[in-house]
């Protein structure tokens, strides 16, 4: 079934061999990632237009659902086959990987927190009403949300590190 879909999609008359399939999968995977980012970008643009016009168009939630469903399916399938796991043979290696995760999760949390604060408290109200009214409580909320996001990211990523010692 998968071969039939693949052949039809790429316009081939017969089954591809292992090298061809390998290359086709690589190209499709990369273009899939690009397409995902493109739909995310389009959703963001659509959200900005919706905010300007104080409405909710069909495109914004549709693109959001497509993005989430696609990401969910990919994550579940990859997780089911344990393709996102990292094996550690020693305690030193495990600690090193954990340290790397802490750094990336912290950066991710800060990046996400500041982006959300900037977009939700400055950009969104400005394009919607033309007024910006931010108090310290809003900043604290987004900092806590960022920290929560980073911790969740860290704990999920840590669960993918397998100890073999």
């Amino acid at each position, binding site marked *: 079934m998968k071969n039939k879909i693949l052949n039809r999609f790429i316009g081939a008359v017969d089954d*591809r*061999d*292992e*090298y*061809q399939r390998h290359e086709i999968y690589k190209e499709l995977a990369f273009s899939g990632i690009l397409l995902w980012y493109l739909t995310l970008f389009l959703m963001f643009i659509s959200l900005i237009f919706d905010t300007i016009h104080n409405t909710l168009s069909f495109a914004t939630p549709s693109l959001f659902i497509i993005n989430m469903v696609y990401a969910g399916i990919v994550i579940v399938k990859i997780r089911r086959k344990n393709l996102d796991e990292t094996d550690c043979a020693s305690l030193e290696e495990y600690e090193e990987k954990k340290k790397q995760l802490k750094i990336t999760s912290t950066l991710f949390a800060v990046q996400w927190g500041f982006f959300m604060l900037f977009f939700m408290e400055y950009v969104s109200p400005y394009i919607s009403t033309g007024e910006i009214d931010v108090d310290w409580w809003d900043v604290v909320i987004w900092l806590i949300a960022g920290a929560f996001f980073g911790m969740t990211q860290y704990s999920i990523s840590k669960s993918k590190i397998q100890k073999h010692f």
Partner: protein
Amino acid sequence: MNRVKEFRKNRNVTQIELAKRVGVARQTINLIENDKYNPSLSLCISLAKELHTDLNTLFWEEKNHEE
């Protein structure tokens, strides 16, 4: 460098003929001969059988250097 090309020429087999016998494209045989693609073990075995040799002779580099 593997010895697929050498064994194929010794047996007077073209790339397309060998490709058809092992069930891959001619392009794949060309890439294997030029060390631009690492074939799967099952394809290596098929190639070795078609060229009437064994995996070591066909793919084991150290042995090739010794000779």
